[in-house]
């Protein structure tokens, strides 16, 4: 399998060893065009693997939607803990009349 050492720059992420990770990250280009190319690559690979198939099922978009929910939860985390704290303090009267606008 490993007949010829591949330069670190060209290895893909699943093949990178854990100790080599920082140096591998240093070889990636983080310019805007590089980032867009990477996002495009990820999008295309996901699309071709799960959606652009002859008999695609609901799993393709379901994974995307679930990932979206998870990311939204992470983004909202401290806001949600604040709401949970308010609900626990006074259980029945946990709300006040909304006196501020949207």
């Amino acid at each position, binding site marked *: 399998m490993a007949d010829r050492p591949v330069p670190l720059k060209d290895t893909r992420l699943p093949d990178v060893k854990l100790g080599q990770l920082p140096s591998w990250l240093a070889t990636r280009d983080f310019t805007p065009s590089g980032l867009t190319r990477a996002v495009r690559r990820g999008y295309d690979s996901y699309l071709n693997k799960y*959606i652009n198939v002859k008999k*695609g099922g609901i799993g393709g978009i379901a994974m995307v939607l679930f990932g979206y929910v998870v990311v939204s939860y992470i*983004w909202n985390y401290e806001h949600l803990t*604040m709401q949970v704290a308010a609900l626990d303090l006074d259980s029945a009267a946990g709300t*006040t009349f909304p006196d501020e606008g949207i």
Partner: protein
Amino acid sequence: MNLTFFNQFTSPQIMGVPLIMLALLAPSAMFQTQNNRWLTNRLSLLQLWMINLFTKQLMSPISKTGYQWSIILTSLMIMLLMINLLGLLPYTFTPTTQLSMNMGLAIPMWLATVLTGLRNQPTASLGHLLPEGTPNLLTPILIIIETISLFIRPLALGVRLTANLTAGHLLIQLTSTATFTLLPTMPTLSMLTMVVLLLLSILELAVAMIQAYVFVLLLSLYLQENT
């Protein structure tokens, strides 16, 4: 901080990046842009079929000069549809609950229709301010009333969308909070969960909301371009 039920509509931020950006970009991830094949996959087929159906339905009453509007109206419809539907998922943020965004969509579109009509057929579009067959005595009053109704249109468009979505989300939060706090007392719980479920299915009418939005937009364009 005063914790009210309206706190769910504040745009959460992480490291200064508001969630609204992700929520606005998410619909674009659902649609495949370019496929070099003749026969595409099932998802694209479904989406294309729906888009074709909708566009044909939307554009049929409009005259030929109005067909330039087809792409912006269809993309607007798809964007609002996806944003509202994605907002029904748990923990997600719905950008269309913000009045600023809806007015930002409504006012320029309405203004474009008005200006198109005034530029291409000024007499006809001014003539819309007076319906046919009104008695001569009522003419001044009616023109004032029609002008007011013309200027109310963008306000109505934006506020309608905001109010519908905000009210739906708020109701869901209210009923689910009530269900949660009444959990110790069992008999009312099952009825309340049923109410929550019913409300969620009613909230699928967010989809119908979009239809209302674009149809009203269409209506104003229709009046301008078709005489």
